[in-house]
């Protein structure tokens, strides 16, 4: 009996890990903490998540695209494909570190707009700053 429970638990963990890894679209970033509380919005829902990487490049899903000197056209094509798979009106979520330059974040937002997203969510730390 114990061995059977062992195996069942191992299988559950295996499938959970696989599911989690395939869904991992968020790169670990030091997000901006804003001074006052802001209306909390759940960012766990399915979105097109655009990560502006501190070391250069923009990541969408498991793929990384160049963003210098200009945004890679393949990113916009990939964003269009992602948008088509999501329900209409789904926004893009742009994630960038607090110290990131405005030019790089704006380029990522521009790419989302060019791909046909009508609105964008900007990721922030859920904890407000003192």
């Amino acid at each position, binding site marked *: 009996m114990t061995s059977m429970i*062992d195996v069942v638990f191992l299988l*559950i963990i295996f499938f959970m890990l696989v599911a*989690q890894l395939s869904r991992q679209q968020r790169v670990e970033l030091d997000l*901006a903490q804003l*001074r006052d509380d802001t209306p909390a919005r759940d960012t766990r829902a399915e979105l097109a998540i655009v990560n502006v990487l501190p070391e250069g490049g923009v990541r969408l899903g498991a793929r990384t695209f160049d963003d210098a000197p200009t945004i890679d056209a393949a990113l916009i094509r990939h964003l269009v494909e992602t948008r088509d798979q999501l329900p209409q009106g789904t926004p893009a979520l742009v994630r960038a570190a607090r110290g990131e330059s*405005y030019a790089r974040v704006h380029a990522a937002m521009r790419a989302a707009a060019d791909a046909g997203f009508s609105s964008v969510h900007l*990721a922030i*730390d*859920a904890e407000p700053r003192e």
Partner: protein
Amino acid sequence: MTARSFEITATRRRRNGRAATSLAPRLASMIDVVFLLLMYFLLIAGFTKPESSLDAELAGEAPVADPFDLPPQPIDVVVRTTGTGPDAFALVVAGLPGDAVSDAEMLDAALASSDAVLSRTDQVFVVRAEPTTRWEHVLETFNIIRRRGYERVRFEEPK
């Protein structure tokens, strides 16, 4: 080792002809299950920091309710980074009634006092910054305007 010693004790007792009812737990299996449960709960909990988001407008001009109404003049908010701290930035605001605004607190106060003059749904704010401006400073400025209820805030192409 402990589990095996339990089994040996039980066997010896049986050979001696005594009634041997071993109530000893199987330690190895128990550790297995405990570790599996630990891994299970660790996976469920996850290690990601909780995050939130602000929504911003990307599309062009929103339609004006009355086509004969002139859209209000946009208010320009220029953000300039002055250091690496979260509050180390200066603002230059053009088009906002009242005194000149040069920092976040002044912008917040000016927006609070302009409540009666500006329309929350029609008034357009344009946030401008240099390419190297820190993102957190732009976001903080954006948040001040949105928190006061103004819905139309745009990010201008950095120059």
